[in-house]
């Protein structure tokens, strides 16, 4: 069953079409990543699904509710982790979590939530004394304390150091294993690649590509690239296939839809001549390559 169904969603601000006809289906239990440059319509789309924003047109169904009118019953089943930390600085960690837990009919155990997000040692600390990463983890705790079926994570690891990011990722993985549906927005390609079952890239208010992180934008069908360096004195023109020499690094590049075959020919050719192919590597276009190609010059990073 679909947790989220969006058809023909639009949001206009005067002549500006922030969201310009988006269709999306997110299945229950899926981790779905929405990628896109700043101003692409990503947050507007998510905020419409959260019920924070009105839409201009289109149909939106989230857990069987129209978010614009779903009210309390709708919000009891979703958890929202905002991009910015928005907490009363004078409260203690456990006070904040207790207060939020009371808002939901079936909340999770507060101690358990504190442990999940790794704030056990900070439970009696004032929020203003927490580091940025700890505050984000508290935000995460408040987003999951109501045991929601659907969790919105708006750039959940922005500003995290690498180890905190790994921790957050494993937490999100835990939520997935509990059968939660997760919609996350992110700027990080590796985050989408690690966490998401499916990815959609949004640009200029439209979805420009959608699929698994492995296949999106024709990644799996696209040409693989073989790259290596030849010893001095070996003519690159003799290499099988259609070699291109990168004038800067001197590397030889081969592009092929059949990397297995070409690699076999190439290594056979090299072995016959007793040549070692230095720095030999086979790569597919990375998710980042695809993303940059899809979003074009829209991304100002």
């Amino acid at each position, binding site marked *: 069953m679909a947790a989220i169904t969006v058809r023909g969603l639009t949001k206009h*601000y005067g002549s500006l079409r922030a969201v310009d006809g988006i269709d999306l289906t997110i299945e229950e239990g899926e981790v779905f990543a929405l990628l896109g440059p*700043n*101003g692409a319509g990503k*947050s507007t789309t998510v905020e419409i699904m959260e019920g924070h924003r009105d839409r201009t047109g289109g149909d939106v169904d989230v857990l069987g509710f129209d978010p614009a009118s779903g009210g309390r019953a709708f919000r*009891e089943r979703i958890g*929202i982790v*905002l991009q910015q930390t928005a*907490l009363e600085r004078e*409260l203690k960690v456990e006070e904040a979590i207790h207060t939020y837990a009371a808002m939901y*009919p079936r909340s999770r155990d507060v101690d358990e939530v504190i442990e999940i997000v790794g704030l056990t040692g900070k439970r009696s600390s004032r929020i203003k004394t927490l580091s940025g990463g700890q505050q984000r983890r508290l935000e995460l705790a408040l987003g999951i304390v109501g045991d929601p079926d659907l969790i919105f994570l708006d750039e959940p690891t922005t500003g995290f150091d690498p180890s905190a990011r790994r921790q957050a990722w494993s937490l999100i993985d835990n939520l997935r294993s509990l059968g939660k549906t997760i919609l996350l927005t992110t700027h990080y390609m590796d985050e989408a690649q690690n966490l998401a079952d499916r990815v959609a890239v949004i640009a200029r208010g439209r979805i420009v590509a959608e699929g698994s992180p492995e296949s999106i934008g024709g990644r799996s069908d696209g040409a693989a690239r073989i790259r290596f360096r030849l010893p001095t004195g070996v003519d690159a023109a003799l290499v099988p296939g259609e070699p291109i020499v990168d004038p800067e690094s001197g590397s030889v590049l081969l592009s092929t839809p059949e990397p297995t075959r070409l690699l076999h020919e190439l290594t056979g050719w090299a072995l016959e001549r007793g040549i070692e192919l230095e720095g030999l590597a086979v790569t597919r276009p990375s998710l980042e390559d695809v993303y940059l190609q899809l979003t074009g010059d829209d991304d100002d990073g």
Partner: protein
Amino acid sequence: MARDLRLVVQQIRYQNKIFWRTPIAAFFTLVFPLMFLVLFASIFGNDEIEELGITVAQFYAPALAVFGAASATYTNLATSTAIARDEGILKRVRGTPLPPWIYIAGRVGSAIWIAVLAVTLMMSVGILVYNVELIGRTFPAAVVSFVVGAATFAALGLFVAAMIKNGDSAPAVTNATLLPIAFVSDVFIAIEDPPVWLDVLGNIFPLKHFVAAFGDAFHPGLSGSGFAWTGTEFSEVTGTGEYAIGLHIAVMAAWGIAAAVLAVRYFRWDPRGMEGRVKRRRGEATVSGNDIESDGV
């Protein structure tokens, strides 16, 4: 319903905690008016003011108690609500199942509770230190006046929070309104035979009515329980007068209801400062206001 009431109580306690952990707000609401009482009683001495027929403290304690109640509701509520909106706290609450009315009830309830403490503290010091007299006959009317007054100033506080752009301007707006009005509302000085325009000015705003309705309850020379439409001022010639809160309550309630209606109409949960006035890259439009995309920068 029982669950909602529990949530209201919890929200009030939550807001109270935040208040007590913000010492500057606690100081201005509770200690500051008390300093005025001590100051006035020292400057003027705690003798009887002949024109009014009561002692300095008997006059100032209830007037300053009302001032404390007004700053607990009006100033504090406007400022803390606007700042919470700037910080995205209101938006975050809006994304939870907590009904908005419960959140607002928590803020208002907490503000009124602090006002109760401010009034109790002021009157206690007055009674214990300056021999202020408590009158049983007028006590119910004093309580009614307090409730209506505190609710009115809470509504005005929410109205200000709804109208201002960001929290930084909240203290300026509230102080620039409350303080001058306090000077024409018999809080700091009881103006004898004021010029007509000053009298009219004071009577337009709700603070003077709050001070009169609550303060006259502590005037031993006035007769009646207070539950009457209009009374008569104390006359030093006859030594009599009548206590009445009806008209004062009506004026306050009119302000309170108008403020509440406008606050509901214009209240925003989204921070405007952070999201507004963002120049769009695409160049088609420059959008300001609270209704704009907030992708991270």
